[in-house]
């Protein structure tokens, strides 16, 4: 450790650039993590944090620039190489063997071997106890991973890095899966490890915990480092603004002060839980009227996915009720939601919004193949489908080769237009639009905004979920803040500003 203390940069990056296709995931990124510090990297989705971590872990390699270890540039050959140099990472999806006990998972692949090539469980247990003591946690090592709660699994992941001798721990959004009390425990554990001589690099969306635990904060946006600062020199609102970016002068859509009186969507006491049973949303009450765009502002992971799932009818809420267009839809299937007039633009365009391996034509009619316009007596009317698809795609200026080409042949922006063409062509009453312009260029974004506004002007209702504050401010007639699964405030467009919405995103009242 004494030798460590003399280096300035234990782990870092120098002008690291990594491109995926035409997208620069990392653009000349510089990062310097000093030994025995806690260094936070913050940024929205698509800021390039995960790409950078993968590079620092040796999973991915930079196109240009290099990883720095102990002040010197190195070429990591893979995660095993990184491990050998003392760098370990806890991924968002835990890498544990569920049917094995915690102790077995701890020593897995590095078992202490005793007499006759057998595993020396006594030594393993002693080592486990020693590590738990260092970390200041109590763990029942006999528990199987499947039976262990999430925060215990996470502690195990961290202890396993220590067991393998890592002194630099990379934690990828470690608090995303934790309840508030457990977050406090984790932050305490991180401080303990720092005091004990370890270096921690962690990624987070949650600015409050970053302010509370980090020594240094690096803010990334759109693949670049925009700022490196310390909690003492910054504030929550400043961080939020740096993360979201200065408001670019985007074509703002005219707001509608008074939507119609027609209540379309009404949720009461809506609660949603994730697969682990952790409550992610609610209880939430939400009304959406015909002819208005309701924007949901919030840092991702605050219940947006669950709200989208419930509103689009993809998942049943754990508690509460949903009424849509006058009917109870709480337990209705996805196809009922759609038949009742709900359209859905998925944030995951490649996997859920479109089927990239299917043709453009198939993507256009998917879910509507039974409609009278497209089939008669169970037989597809290919000619009518082609005519309608060409008409709709031309209206949205989608650039494509032929209708039989796979959707993957389209550029990102045109893919999104295809998805919009399908969803808007149905003339739904409510459009649930999740990140409708993610990965779309500026011109495409303006066009998509105008489409959504035109849909509203025809009397449609829109639930807009976006991480882009600009988008929320440009489109929404009404803005609600979602924080920790709860609605923390509501503003109409006239009252909204970057500061006020930014505060709502951080869970503060929009006063």
């Amino acid at each position, binding site marked *: 450790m004494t030798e460590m203390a003399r280096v300035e940069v234990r782990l870092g990056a120098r002008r690291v650039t990594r491109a995926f296709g035409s997208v620069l995931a990392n653009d000349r990124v510089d990062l310097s993590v000093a030994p025995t510090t806690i260094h936070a990297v913050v940024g929205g989705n698509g800021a390039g944090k995960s790409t950078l971590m993968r590079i620092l872990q040796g999973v991915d390699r930079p196109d240009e620039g290099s990883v720095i270890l102990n002040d010197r540039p190195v070429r990591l050959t893979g995660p095993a190489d990184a491990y050998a140099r003392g760098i370990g990472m806890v991924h968002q999806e835990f890498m544990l063997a569920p049917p094995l006990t915690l102790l077995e998972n701890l020593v897995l692949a590095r078992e202490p071997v005793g007499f006759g090539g057998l595993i020396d469980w006594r030594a393993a247990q002693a080592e486990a106890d020693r590590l738990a003591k260092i970390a200041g946690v109590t763990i029942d090592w006999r528990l199987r991973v499947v039976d262990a709660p999430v925060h215990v699994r996470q502690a195990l992941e961290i202890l396993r890095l220590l067991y393998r001798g890592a002194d630099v721990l990379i934690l990828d959004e470690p608090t995303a899966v934790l309840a508030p009390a457990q977050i406090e425990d984790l932050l305490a554990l991180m401080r303990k490890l720092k005091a004990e001589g370890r270096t921690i690099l962690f990624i987070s969306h949650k600015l409050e915990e970053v302010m509370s635990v980090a020594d240094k904060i690096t803010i990334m946006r759109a693949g670049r480092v925009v700022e490196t600062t310390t909690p003492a020199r910054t504030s929550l609102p400043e961080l939020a603004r740096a993360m979201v970016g200065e408001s670019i002068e985007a074509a703002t859509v005219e707001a509608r002060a008074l939507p119609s009186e027609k209540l379309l969507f009404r949720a009461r006491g809506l609660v949603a839980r994730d697969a682990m049973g952790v409550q992610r949303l609610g209880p939430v009450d939400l009304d959406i009227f015909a002819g208005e765009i309701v924007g949901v502002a919030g840092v991702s992971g605050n219940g947006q996915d669950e709200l989208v799932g419930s509103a689009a009818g993809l998942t049943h809420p754990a508690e509460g009720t949903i009424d849509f267009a006058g009917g109870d839809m709480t337990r209705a299937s*996805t*196809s009922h939601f759609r038949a009742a007039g709900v359209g859905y633009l998925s944030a995951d365009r490649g996997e859920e919004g479109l*089927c990239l391996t*299917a043709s453009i034509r198939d993507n256009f009619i998917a879910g509507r193949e039974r409609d009278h316009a497209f089939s008669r007596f169970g037989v597809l009317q290919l000619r009518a489908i082609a005519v309608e698809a060409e008409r709709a795609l031309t209206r949205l200026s989608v650039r494509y080769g032929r209708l039989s080409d796979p959707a993957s042949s389209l550029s990102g922006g045109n893919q999104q237009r295809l998805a919009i063409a399908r969803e808007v062509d149905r003339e739904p009453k409510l459009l649930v639009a999740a990140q409708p312009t993610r990965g779309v260029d500026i011109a495409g974004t303006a066009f998509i905004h105008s489409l959504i506004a035109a849909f509203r002007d025809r009397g449609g209702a829109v639930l807009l979920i976006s991480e882009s504050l600009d988008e929320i401010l440009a489109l929404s007639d009404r803005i609600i803040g979602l924080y920790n699964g709860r609605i923390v405030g509501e503003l109409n467009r006239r009252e909204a500003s970057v500061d006020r919405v930014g505060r709502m995103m951080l869970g503060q009242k929009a006063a």
Partner: protein
Amino acid sequence: MMNARWSVYLVRSATTAAPFALAIAIGAVVLAATGHEPLAVYQLMVEEAFGGERRIAATLTAATPLLLTGLAAAVAFRAGIFNVGAEGCFYLGGMAAAVVGYASPNWPSTLLIPLALAASGLVGGAWLLGPGVLRARLGVDEVVTTLMLNFIAVDLTSWLVNGPLLARGSANSATPQIVSNAELPRLLPPSTLHLGFVLSLSLVVAYGFWGRFSVEGFRSRLVGLSARFSRAVGIDPLRIFVGVMVASGVIGGLAGGIHVLGLVHRFVAGFSPGYGFTGVAIALLARNSAFGVALAAILFGALSSAGANIQLFSNVPLEIVEILQGAVMIFAVAQFGFGWAGHRLGP
């Protein structure tokens, strides 16, 4: 544009032909190593399979059950359901048709044949309803359930023909002969080619149209490509899973029924030399296309009809043909593994 499309077709046909080419190469090595002249043997095989009306009829007869077992597999595969239960359905469907065929009074053919075939389809469909529902409701892997059900079906029918349904005075494990009006008519006597070939081929053609032009065909293809996307646009993948599983079972059952009514004229224990599994290889080779299923079924039919004759006219053992068949299947499955790696999606 044109060039790109042509190269796509070229690559596609090359990859389809590759398993056959590799199998033929391996067969040549085996033949040469055992002291045969590979080219001469292959030439003999082609002659035995396609040389003249009688031989072509034999090849098509051999292809008949494969058309339907291949189809049974393809229907399920294209919706992303890896059903390998056609073998069991083949046995049960055959048994059902045989029972109807021998136990019924000598009604006219127009009544008896549809009745027997309906029974075989019904039994086959019901047999796979369970795995379909288990997959849809509980996410139970259909490969395991359908594979295991095959053993149960084979042994169940074997027990039935050794006990309750054994023909009186027969030492074989077989049911009595079906009545003559239940037999499918022969197309080219004296060859054994029967109406079942036409029925099977029509079903394959119908499948081609269904897949291309029908609403349900569209839905099942979309579910096979992406279950998550299908769910988001309001197509229920679980319903499709159950639907194609039952459809696949019906077709597998029909295959057995047609085999009994057209060729064997009774049910005999162990009467399928793995038609159901050959069907899996056929569907994989065909990439679930109707045309491909027809072509691959006829090729496999040619291999087996040539194989039967080849040891009569040369000293090449029948096993060489089985090696060829096995090699084609292995390469087909290996190729399938490349194409499908990471493709399967959860429910």
